């Protein structure tokens, strides 16, 4: 299963309490706090952990349908840190999961899967928004995803639908669910989808 999360780095700067001492207390575990010393950019480190935890939560929700603010239930260990990509292992209540984050100056895009072998098979896309309202942006991400899936499945785009079932996004073709695992995210000027 897959979960993803995009963070608009430009928007996030100075707009969140991320540098507030309580933020770390509420989100990070002791071993994670030790790892942030590897970063020159503290904000980048904190958003990296957040986006991994949020992606892991989406996988957790798909498997359990349990909701909650539970970032500390996902312990992230950063395995390999490069300028544009981080690989990570996530200890979740349901076992060991794997994640990667793609990084640019504009965004972070985290993707987590419950199986290591799936990590390199993820298809994904980042979408810079022109629209400014939540609903228009959401529509735009759906449209891009439908176009991608239309090419993948050789099905007409207008007959594909992305609908939520029990708060989990599913792909429908003529009222039938297709066996494609999708995750969608958006944050201010960036949208993203990932699928397996």
């Amino acid at each position, binding site marked *: 299963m897959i979960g993803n999360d995009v*963070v608009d780095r430009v928007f*996030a700067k100075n707009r*969140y*309490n*991320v540098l*507030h001492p*309580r*933020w770390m207390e*509420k*989100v990070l575990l002791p071993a994670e706090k030790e790892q942030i010393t590897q970063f020159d950019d503290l904000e980048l480190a904190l958003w990296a952990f*957040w986006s991994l935890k*949020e992606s892991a*939560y989406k996988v957790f929700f798909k498997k359990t349908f349990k*909701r*909650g*603010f*539970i*970032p*500390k239930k996902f312990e992230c260990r950063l395995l390999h840190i490069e300028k544009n990509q981080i690989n990570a292992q996530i200890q979740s209540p349901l076992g060991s999961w794997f994640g990667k984050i793609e990084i640019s100056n504009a965004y972070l895009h985290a993707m987590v899967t419950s199986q290591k072998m799936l990590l390199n098979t993820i298809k994904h896309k980042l979408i810079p928004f022109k629209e400014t*309202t*939540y*609903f228009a942006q959401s529509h735009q991400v759906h449209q891009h995803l439908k176009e991608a899936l239309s090419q993948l499945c050789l099905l007409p785009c207008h007959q594909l639908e992305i609908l939520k079932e029990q*708060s989990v996004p599913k792909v429908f073709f003529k009222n039938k669910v297709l066996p494609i695992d999708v995750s969608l995210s958006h*944050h201010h000027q960036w949208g993203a989808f990932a699928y397996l």
Partner: protein
Amino acid sequence: MTVEEITAKLRSIIEPYVEEKELLNNIMPETDLLEDLKINSANLVDIIIDVEMAFDIEIDDDAAEQMLKVKDSVAIIQERITA
């Protein structure tokens, strides 16, 4: 503080994090901060920190886990104010 007073104060804390302001018009006890108000999940941390400072209380991890709906958040705040 009454439930109404806590709800009003909570609403003023939440408001800056709601991008689509018209969604604030129908806040009910059952309103879900993420699903109904479309608040970005990253802002939940901000809201919890803001609530702690505004009400001068501490919200531990177990309580924070429950803070998804307005009624649950109000109950958690009320419990801690009166503790």
